[in-house]
């Protein structure tokens, strides 16, 4: 379902979901053309989690993400040109080319760290919540991470601290392995947990935890809204697990786009290659959101087509911007090692 929000906000969310989707599809294309090197992780399939969730945060809240951060940054209003410039290692990237895809972390948008260390952000986010609580700043900390993070020992330690000290932190666990790829050869690693549902782990530390459908924007909106309010009113940490089905394009470690996203696919998947068709029909959150917008009378297909075209234009401009940006000066390699004392 779609969240109970005014049309302008719904269309804004739809636009962001399309922005994430087209950004990632363009990125995969650029990688296949050999226009940048290195490993990267796309957010395709999780758009209906990140977009509604992040839209509920305040501008001064403190965010932490992982290697799979592109969608979070764009959902938070990030500039796709600067995000891409970072992934290309260019000077105009958010981290001035020092971080790359795994670590793009725009401080101006409230991100304190996007860590490539699985599980690494949970203690950090808990610490940011400690600062917020200590200073009574009214901020909350939000950790956005994958199901695999729960396998790391740092995570239950963070849960224990947050629970004991009633810290204002939201743990948003995006479980993108609903039907689990497991550790199949050639496949992405995914969760291998003795604890299931995953919510049992935070619950053992007395952190209220719920599981929702991460492809259902309304369910995400409601769960987040309730949790954020509870956290802001001093209720301590909360945990939400969102479920989504892994996008078949990431079955291997190097993503492939077999069906570029288009508005009419929301109603007709017959043109999509058979081996991936079921995902677009049953599990694609962006197509689902567009379908629900039209079914609920909030938008018509023509409006969505216009929106989609404007997103594609924005992506094209972002690609030009990023490739026009130069590499940093070599002397930049030796800056930022230590902060200047003030």
């Amino acid at each position: 379902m779609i969240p109970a929000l005014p049309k302008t906000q719904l269309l804004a969310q739809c636009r962001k979901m399309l922005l994430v989707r087209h950004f990632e599809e363009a990125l995969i294309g650029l990688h296949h053309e050999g226009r940048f090197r290195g490993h990267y992780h796309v957010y395709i399939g999780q758009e209906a989690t990140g977009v509604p969730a992040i839209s509920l945060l305040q501008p001064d809240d403190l965010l932490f993400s992982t290697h799979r951060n592109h969608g979070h940054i764009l959902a938070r209003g990030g500039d796709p040109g600067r995000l891409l410039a970072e992934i290309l290692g260019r000077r105009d990237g958010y981290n001035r080319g020092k971080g790359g895809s795994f670590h793009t972390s725009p401080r101006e948008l409230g991100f304190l760290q996007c860590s490539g260390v699985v599980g690494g952000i949970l203690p950090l986010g808990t610490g940011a919540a400690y600062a917020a609580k200590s200073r009574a700043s009214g901020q909350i900390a939000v950790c956005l991470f994958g199901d695999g993070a729960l396998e790391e020992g740092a995570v239950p330690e963070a849960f224990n601290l947050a629970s004991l000290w009633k810290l204002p932190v939201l743990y948003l666990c995006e479980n993108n392995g609903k039907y689990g790829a497991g550790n199949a050869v050639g496949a992405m690693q995914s969760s291998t947990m003795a604890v299931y549902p995953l919510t049992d782990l935070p619950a053992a530390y007395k952190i209220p935890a719920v599981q929702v459908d991460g492809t259902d924007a309304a369910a995400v909106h409601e769960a987040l809204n309730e949790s954020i309010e509870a956290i802001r009113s001093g209720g301590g940490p909360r945990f939400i697990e969102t479920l989504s089905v892994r996008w078949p394009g990431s079955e291997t470690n190097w993503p492939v786009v077999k069906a570029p996203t288009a508005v009419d696919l929301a109603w007709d998947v017959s043109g999509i290659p058979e081996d991936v068709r079921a995902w677009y029909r049953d599990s694609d959150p962006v197509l689902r959101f567009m379908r629900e917008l039209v079914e609920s009378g909030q938008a018509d297909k023509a409006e969505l087509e216009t929106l989609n075209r404007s997103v594609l234009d924005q992506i094209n401009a972002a690609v030009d911007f990023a490739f026009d940006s130069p590499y940093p000066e070599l002397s930049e390699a030796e800056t930022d090692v230590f902060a200047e004392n003030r």
Partner: protein
Amino acid sequence: MRQLAYHEAKLEALRELMEEDDRVYLIGGTFFSLSPHRLGFAAVEKAYPDRVAAPPISELGFCGLATGAAMAGLRPVVDLTTGSFLFEAWPQVCNEAANVLYMSGGQVRAPVVFHMLHGLRGGGAAQHSASPQAMLWNCPGLEIVLPSSPRDVKGLLKSAVASENPTVFIDHSGLFDTEGPVPEADHVPLGQADVKRAGADVTLIGTSLALHRALGVAEVLAREGIDVEVVDPRTLVPFDLDTVMASVEKTGRVVVVDETHQSCGVAAEIAARIVETGFDKLKGPIRRVATLDVPVPYSQPLEEHIGPSEGRITAAIRESIG
């Protein structure tokens, strides 16, 4: 002699280890990270489903588990994939495995092997590019192995597993496709350096992938009449100072190239040992070509700039011969 690619020799070692010793268990990744060669490992996994385990993302847990299993009689080989993830396992490796023999007064051994890929890998940035060998060299009790050739990766992997001590086996993905001779029946002991190229003017000591850069530079300089001897220690612990000093006595000039950071790095320790034992043999200062003392940047030109490049090795050699 037969020629093998590095990845083939490494896989052959894993296969033979599994065949020859049923105490050997493989725990962790693919030993070839995300490279296409991981599919070769999949065959080993299939052949020994009960002795190959894919653990959760729990480096602290599974490195400790492997150490405990080694203490109780197995010969586990753990793959941490990227050297940076060793930091997740630090307490079990550096504070448990490294100390158990000594602290028990010699009663308990932990013959475990921790395998990982180190170094600048092309876009790994600060959190996926670590070369932890220098930090580990400051942890008495751990053996440290750094192969650079197909022959060495096979021989050293087998010696690491045969060793009675905890051994850190540090590989580099940049080596996988190199080719070289690999004898059928071979033994490469820990603690034996290898002169990879004989020369008379300068001793160039290099490890792992940096060794190949050293060899490349040596070939180029040979055309100018500069005769470089390239020495590969192959293992840091135990360290074969004799072979290194024999070369230093011959040349009197030393450049050490290595991918750890410059300060307290591998090159620093090697230079210190040479100076302590053979100061009088040196005709000038020892030069280090190491990674600059900065976290690893993502951007390609910056990453290339901070590493021990051919250009920096060449410059160091020219300075050294004056």
